[in-house]
Each structure stands twice: as C-alpha cells, then as structure tokens.
C-alpha cells in the first residue's frame, strides 16, 4: 500500500507532546538535573556525572530496603492470593446475599490509604486500640508495634492483607462467575469430587484473573508507602523501611537531593520494567 507522506500530521501530535512535557518530562528533568550534579545553592553547582548513581547502588541501606521490600511483596502474594481465592469461593453466587457480601468485601478498597494507616495505627495500640488490647490482655501475648520489629512487620503485613485481599477476591469472584454452568454439570456427570472441580475446572479458568491479581499486587506492594509511613514511619529502626520510605527519608528527611534523585530514577526504571512485564503478559494471556 502506498503511504502518503504529510509532515503536517506532526502538528496533531503537538498538543499531546506539550501536555506530557509539562506534566511528566519537565519535572523528571529536574530530577535528572539533580542526579548528575551536586547543587549546593543558586549558581553553585558541580558536574558529578554518574557518581550519585554509583554511590546509591552501593549503599548497603538501600540493599537492605530492597530485599526487605521484596520479602514483603512475596509474603503479600503468598497470603493474599490463596486467601482471595478462598473468599471468592465462599461468597454466595446470586441473590441479595451476593450483592451485600460484595459491598462489604469491597469496603476496605474504598478507604483512603492514609485513613487505612490511621485506623491500624490506633487499632494496634495496646492502651486504646481494640486489636492491641485484645492481643496483649486477652490473648496474653506481648505485642507492641512501636518497639518490636517483628510486631511492626506483622502489623503492616496484616494491614495490607486487610486492605488488598478484597481486590483479589473480587477479581476471582468475577472469574468464577464467568465459568459456564455446563462445566459444573459435566463434572457432576463425570463423578468429580469437590477438590477435582476446584483443581481441574475452577483454578485453570481463574488463570487469567489470577495473573492480573498477582501482577497488580506485586507492583502495588513494591511501591507501598503511605500505610507503613502512617503506622510505623519505617521503624522501629529500619524494620519496615520499604523502598519508598527509604527514598523519602533520603530526599526529604536528610535532604540528600543527589542520592535521592539518582535512586528516584532507578526506582522509576524498575517500576517501568515491571509495568512492561505486566502489560505484555496480560496481552499474551488475552490472545490465547
């Protein structure tokens, strides 16, 4: 096919280019600016090249935060995916009970991150929090998320499970409802037990939605910031200092703009790669 060459068509792209430039590229360039120079004040700057980057990636604190965050993300997936499937299987399939339970289940998803953090921050306190009081005084287990690294970790993990398992459950619920009745009928005729129905019909049919759930939950938990910031502030010590919290500690807490910018770019790139993986995998699943 013969293509017409018309360079005026570029003009049509111009508005998008301009708006993206103002919204994304210009702010990003500021970060790039800081990541390759040491800016001491107005008019006082030294070109440092890749030194900030080298300094950042060699930082053992960053490595620790990275592995900590990765471990957290894996634990999130390990708990939330099976739990989400279980909840979806247990939900009623139709009637007003279905609508009611869907609304109840979806409620945590509608609460702003900050509020989720505040809720758990109070809930977990031993003196005035229902949860903290219950664990300490009724169960008799010593629990204090402001002092004990293990308790802080568990609090943030449980909070994330509470906040985001509904998403997995809703996705799975939709996936389960999409399985046509004849599959269950055929399984009954074939004499399949409940476990076989789950293993050979439901789980394979949920593959698509589960993939989306895994990728979404991995990305989200890898970027987690607000809730642990509100509850633990990254502590005690560095027990809950995930990548985002580490970044804000450097850039805003210590005002190390060079290190902060360099790491921002690296973090940004990491998320971009994950996004790409996410996108291509979903496309491939859709094509099947």
């Amino acid at each position, binding site marked *: 096919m013969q293509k017409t060459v018309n360079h005026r068509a570029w003009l049509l792209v111009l508005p998008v280019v301009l708006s993206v430039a103002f919204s994304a590229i210009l702010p990003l360039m500021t970060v790039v600016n800081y990541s390759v120079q040491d800016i001491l004040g107005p008019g006082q700057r030294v070109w440092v090249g890749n030194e900030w980057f080298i300094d950042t990636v060699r930082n053992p604190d960053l490595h620790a935060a990275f592995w900590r965050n990765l471990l957290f993300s894996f634990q999130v997936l390990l708990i939330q995916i099976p739990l989400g499937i279980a909840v979806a299987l247990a939900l009623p399939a139709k009637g007003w009970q279905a609508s009611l339970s869907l609304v109840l289940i979806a409620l945590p998803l509608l609460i702003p991150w900050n509020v989720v953090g505040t809720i758990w921050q109070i809930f977990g306190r031993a003196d005035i929090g229902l949860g903290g009081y219950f664990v300490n005084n009724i169960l008799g287990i010593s629990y204090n998320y402001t002092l004990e690294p293990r308790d802080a970790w568990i609090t943030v993990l449980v909070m994330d499970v509470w906040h985001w398992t509904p998403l997995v459950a809703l996705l799975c619920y939709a996936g389960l409802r999409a399985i*046509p009745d*004849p*599959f269950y*009928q*055929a399984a*009954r*005729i*074939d*004499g*399949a*037990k409940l476990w*076989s129905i789950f293993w*050979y*019909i439901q789980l*394979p*049919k949920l593959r698509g939605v589960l993939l989306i759930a895994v990728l979404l939950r991995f990305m989200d938990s890898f970027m987690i910031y607000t809730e642990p910031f509100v509850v633990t502030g990254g502590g005690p010590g560095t027990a809950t200092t995930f990548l985002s919290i580490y970044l804000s500690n450097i850039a805003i807490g210590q005002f190390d703009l060079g290190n902060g910018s360099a790491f921002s770019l690296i973090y940004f790139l990491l998320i971009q790669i994950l996004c790409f993986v996410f996108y291509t995998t979903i496309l491939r699943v859709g094509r099947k």
Partner: protein
Amino acid sequence: MAEVKLRGLAHSYHPQPGKPEDYAVRPLEMTWEDGGAYALLGPSGCGKTTLLNIISGLIQPTQGQVLFDGKDVTELPTERRNIAQVFQFPVIYDTMTVFDNLAFPLRNRGVRPSEVTRRVQEIAEQLDLTEDLRRRASGLSADIKQKISLGRGLVRSDVAAILFDEPLTVIDPQLKLVLRSKLKQIHRQFKLTLIYVTHDQTEALTFADQVVVMYEGSVVQVGTPQELFERPAHTFVGYFIGSPGMNLLPARLVDGRVCVGDQPLPVNAGALRLAAGDELSIGIRPEFVRYSTAAAPDALPVHVTRVEDLGNYQIVTAELVGTAQRVKAKLAEEAAASLGPGWLQFPAERLRIYRNGMAV
C-alpha cells in the same frame, strides 16, 4: 443401555406454580425405548433442555418420576445415573491431556488403571482420537473437543443413555456432517439410547428415528420424520417442520361445510363431528397445493403476488380472493406460474383440519 420412562413428569422454576404457564415442562408421559435415536425438537424456551436435565438428574422435577428400565431414579444424583451428556459448548478439562480427559470419569469411579487405559484406547479408536491422546486438550478445535466430551460419556461401560444438548452449534458446517454421521455410527455400534436436543429441523430429521416435538412445555407429537411431515398432529408441528412451513388458514363451519372465507372445501365435516363453536383451521403443505392458471372444480380463485425461483423449485405466494389469507405453493422448476389471477386446489386427502390447534 436402558429404556427411559417419564411418568407424570412436570417441572416449574416457580416456587409455587399455579397456572399451566408457570411450568417449563407441563405434565407428560413419555417412553424412550432402549436403543432408540430420538431428536427432541422445538423452539428456544420450549422446555427441551429442562427435560434433558431432568433425565440426567441435573434438575429435580417438581412432580413425577423418571424410570430407567423400570427402576425409579428420580431421587438418584447425577453421578449415579449412568447418563452421559454432551453440551452445546464443548466441556473439556483444559489442563489435562486428551487421554486424561477421557480417563477422568473412570478414575473418579475408582476403575483399575489397566482397565482405564484399555477403555480409553478403545473409545479413542472409535472416535478417531488416538493420535491426539498425548496432546493437551485446550488447544484443539471445537469438533475434536466435542468428540472428547462425547468420549467421556462413552468410556463408562455402564452408560444407559447419551443426551445431546444442541451439540453441533459451535461446529463448522462442513464438520457438522462428518460429526453427525459419526454419531449415527456410534449409535449403531453401541446400541445406546440417544436423545438429541436441537432446534434445527434438518438435524433432527436426518439424525433420529423418532422425532419428539415440544412446544410451550408440552410434547405435541412423537413420530418418524415422515409422519411429522405428512400428518402433523398440531399446528405448531405443521408450521415448524418443513420449509416453507404448512399453510394454516382460519376456517369456519357454514351449513355443515368447512369453509375458508366463503369457499367451501372438500372436507366431510359430518364425519369429523365438528361443532359450530370450534375454533377451526385447515392446514396444507405447500408441496401438496395444486396451482393452475385456469379455473377447475373445487379450485379457489387467488391472486398471485409473488413467484420465487429457488433453483430446483418455485414458491408461489398467493392471496385468496375475498380474504386476506396468504397461501404458499411449492411447484416444480418447470411449472408455469405468473403473477395475477390464478387458481389453487387443496386435495382432500392432504388437507388437515385442526380444532384448537390439535389435529382432528
């Protein structure tokens, strides 16, 4: 292999059914003979699938009994009924190979592995699936998947009947023929009772020895394809079977004669014991209507409004003079037909009289 008997069977999806319209399947008596090939034919929503699901036990009937070889199975769950069912869309277990798919019903019933292998290979041979046995079932085409669903029914040696719920809907037209003849072959070989639900009359007429026509939850006629064509027991059968369907004209009794409009027809009304208040209609197949361009005794004057040449035959559409009733006639390719005035004859031996929809 079994005779399936339905006794006083009815089903309603309403919690408290009252009116006859509340019933998806209205009370019926029916015997499906051992080894028979039946087609269950009817429009969408007439209760075919409900009836099928009652036989397989997926639905508990509101009233009545299901008997296999005289044994009451109404209370038995599906998995203990020895019924195989093939659905409209192929149901296969995606993650399994074809072999495992076929072996699944046997393994669930605790059959010995050596026996499983023997049965699966035997059935795969019958269905031409031997080459696909090692392949994963998910990537295969719709017709092979449908054969796998059928095979899962056939592997069980104790199968009493196989039920098909419009199994060829998603199959390509050319493959439909192949698969249909495969089904007939399987039927002859295994001598199974087959019940085949469809709304495609060609499929029903070519496949079955006996066609069961359902309409609004009732079985309106059971018969061979020829019986359905020549002697429809219900106006619906006349209209539904045949292409084009039967001509159905409202009629009335005038001085003891059956008339359409003002024209008396060659019917012995006295012998049929018709009463003046009956809602009557006459039916005649387009194939049996005689058309001529000249007047003849008993012929009704008509105005031909359309002549369609459909290749090897023609369809003449005419309006009866004095009424707005339309009649279609199927004529041979070489017959001369022209628009405008003409005459139609309804041979007495081909005329059917219906009272309130039922043949008299």
